[in-house]
């Protein structure tokens, strides 16, 4: 596993130029305060701040992962987790090749929400999207409310990647991203996926009827 830390879209793989570079858009979904941002910060920056004192914006980050023959560049889009902004999520995950649905193992509700997210993704997102389920805060096992088995069962049922992660201790953080990178189809060119969706963000099929540009 090799994760080269980089930030910004211009990051180039440091390997040989002949290695294929694949850029993927990855969307983070999940209830607020389940640790989406922490997870990404841990993955991208290798940092964890319990009280989030660092000044890095965690909304949009990129990270490059080197696999055997390819370099996968993740472009990670964070989404607002609040319930009231739920309806806007399709705008984010439109055109995404991967999504991580995060829940908090110490909070059953977040797991319920995660299930909803998964359902919505399967229904509305691109059919080839790779979905991973991440049970975050695994370091707080004492307060566990969501059993690993339960989540695993749900993941298997829906063909999801599943890992319990901890942004605080970095357990499984890189692993889950690597698993996604491995699962993603590398054959198609980077730009190909962009042709269809996402272009007309405003006048596409926004969730609410009478969307902004109709």
């Amino acid at each position, binding site marked *: 596993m090799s994760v080269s830390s980089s930030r910004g879209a211009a990051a180039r793989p440091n390997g040989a130029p002949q290695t294929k570079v694949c850029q993927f858009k990855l969307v983070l979904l999940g209830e607020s305060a389940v640790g989406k941002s922490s997870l990404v910060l841990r993955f991208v920056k290798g940092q964890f*701040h319990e009280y989030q004192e660092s000044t890095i914006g965690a909304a949009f980050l990129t990270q490059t992962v080197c696999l055997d023959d390819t370099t996968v560049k993740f472009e990670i889009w964070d989404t607002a987790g609040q319930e009231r902004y739920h309806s806007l999520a399709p705008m984010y995950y439109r055109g995404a090749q991967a999504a991580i649905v995060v829940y908090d193992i110490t909070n059953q509700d977040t797991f319920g929400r995660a299930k909803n997210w998964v359902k919505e993704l399967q229904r509305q997102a691109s059919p080839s999207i790779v979905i991973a389920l991440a049970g975050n805060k695994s370091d707080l096992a004492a307060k566990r409310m969501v059993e690993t088995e339960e989540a695993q069962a749900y993941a298997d049922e829906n063909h999801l990647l599943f890992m319990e992660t901890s942004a605080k201790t970095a357990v499984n953080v890189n692993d889950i991203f690597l698993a996604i990178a491995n699962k993603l189809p590398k054959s198609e060119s980077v730009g190909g996926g962009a042709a269809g969706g996402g272009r007309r963000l*405003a006048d596409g099929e926004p969730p609410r009827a009478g969307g*902004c540009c109709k």
Partner: protein
Amino acid sequence: MPSLRMEQSELKCKNGCDYFGNPQWQGYCSKCHREQLQRQRRAANKPSPSSSSASATLPKPERKSEDRLKLTSRSSFSKFEEKRLRQSETLKKANLLKFSMFKKGGSTDDHDHSDKKPEFKIPSAVNEAMKREFNQRFPALAGASRDVRVCVHALALDVLKCARAATADELSERVQGHYQRFLKHMDVSPHFAAADADTKEALIDFVEKHAMTYLHDLPSVVFSPSGTDDERLDARMCERIQSLGWVGAKHLDCKISNDQRARAPLYRAIAELLSMDSASSPGGKLACVRRCCAHVMRLCGAPASADDLLPALIFTVLKANPPRLISNINFVTRFCNAQRLMTGEGGYYFTNLCCAVSFIENLTAESLDMDKEEFDCYMTMPASIGGSSWAAALSLCAELKDAEEQSELVQSLKQQVATIEARATELANSTDVFQKEIEKKVADVLAKTPLEIKPRRELPRFGKFQNIKSSPLIDLDTPPTQEPPERDVPDTVETKEDSAADQSQHTIVPTEITFGEPAKTNILGLETPELQSPHNTEDNWVVKQTNSMELLNSSPLGFTSFDTRSIDELLTPDEFGDNLPPGLSNINYDIDLSDFSADNSAADDLPKPEKDPFSPEGINKDVFDPFVVPKVRDPFSPILESFDQFSLVDSKSNRQSDPFEIVPRPSDPFSPEGLQPEQGFGDAFSPMPVASASTPAQRPLASILDDSDSPTTACLLPTPLLPQQDKPT
């Protein structure tokens, strides 16, 4: 008369566009008339007009009427708004028509982009700028410059061609197709072999930027294109945001603090959002959005996740109420390179903006987590209130900031004043202390040295002054005891003094010498007595006062005047008899006194003595030697050498009445007399050597003496004069 009445329909444009027609324009409205003319012209040029041209002109009125229908059906819009929109619509059409003119000329197939239409060209200025920028940014790809420009031309041309016929979406598709084609072209063309992926991205951006910048400025082609509701949506959005002016940070669950410091990034974010409208390329607008979001992130504080970003961005949009927001968003979504919009930071933030706009459009009580009734209550509130409240809040913020600054300033000023006051009191105290100290010191000094008023220095009382002296003015206080006798001495010159006077003179003499230049002493040969006689300052004073000679000696000119000589003579008398040449005491005692008195009065005459040492003296000697009595002369001769002629004169005159002769000259010091004596002296000097008789010199002296005006003459001279006069005569 029915013929005079015209039907309303008759006044309307024949084309049915609902505008009024004009007989001048064959019953068309101005616009339709122009179209008609163009059609005819085209028909004249081309016997077979393309089908598109027909579709270009004819359907327009229909569509417009459709629009109008739509408009009228929309009750929410005011009449004014309607009119404005209609006007803008017609304007758009008019502009489109112009472009369509270009296109129609030679267009055979719309899809052949490689083949350039001679009728249409991007303005050369734009082209040149493009070329320049390309060479600047991609110097390594000079060969590709033309390809890029061709692509830009093709894109712009295609857009202009299709702008009328195609819907905005179709147009967007075409533009995206151009981008894709250009991308493929870059992969194939040898010109771009040197370009890596990043450069290719930049090249696509370049094409997009220049094509869209050019097209953006053309009204209604790509920016809020005709046939779309963008403008109307803009207006509606604007209204909507205004009506939501009451929505605050707490409603949106965003953690914008009310702290004043938090306002700065908010203002910057708002400014960036507003500037989006003025950027003319999709990339530029995206950059504005990105910058705006960067400020919003700062507004949220430390690592802002999307949980914070989106609410804050919504808040910012609500407060900024950016102009033509929907048009801008649609412009970007339609004509920005799709790939970039899908990925990258710009795409992410733009998506956030779209989300924010979407959220605002669909905002309900639920989405604000508030009571429906409360929400309705807010929404029925006149929009102006919300808006004005925000405006008021903004201005309040500004005012508050100002007030804070002012209060800070006041605080600092207060501090300054306090320090100044402290220092002032300190200064006052120290001055008090200082004053006391000084007072004390002064008192001490006064105690140590009681004030003694010493007699004022007196000019010689001889001669003229005797009158004055008689008057009470001169010496009211006569501190030194010695003075009076001194004065007495001169006064008693005639009587030729008491012993007391002599003694006082003794004291005087040495001091005089000390004051006098050493040269004199040398000359006089009286060094020893001088050195030996240290005296108190009082004595000096006394001397000065008593002896006008002192004044003469101390004159800056430092002349060795006859005064000194006279002094010497004064010295000689009693006490210094040892030091002095032997003969002096005997002989000249009387004479000297008289001389002295005379010298005192002749203070002004100092310069003259100068002359003496040089020529006159020697001459005088020669002249006078014969006259002088040998016994007297010999002892004095060494001293006399330095003496004035007058001394000589004296000496010679002494025979008969020495003191008197000499006295008259000194009367000079006083101005009126001075002149005359000078002349007299000059005369006396020069003529004397020449004429051994020295009659001329003596005469003036006599004449001076005759002047009874001067006090000297009155006092001293009367008696002496007689003999002098007697002599010459």
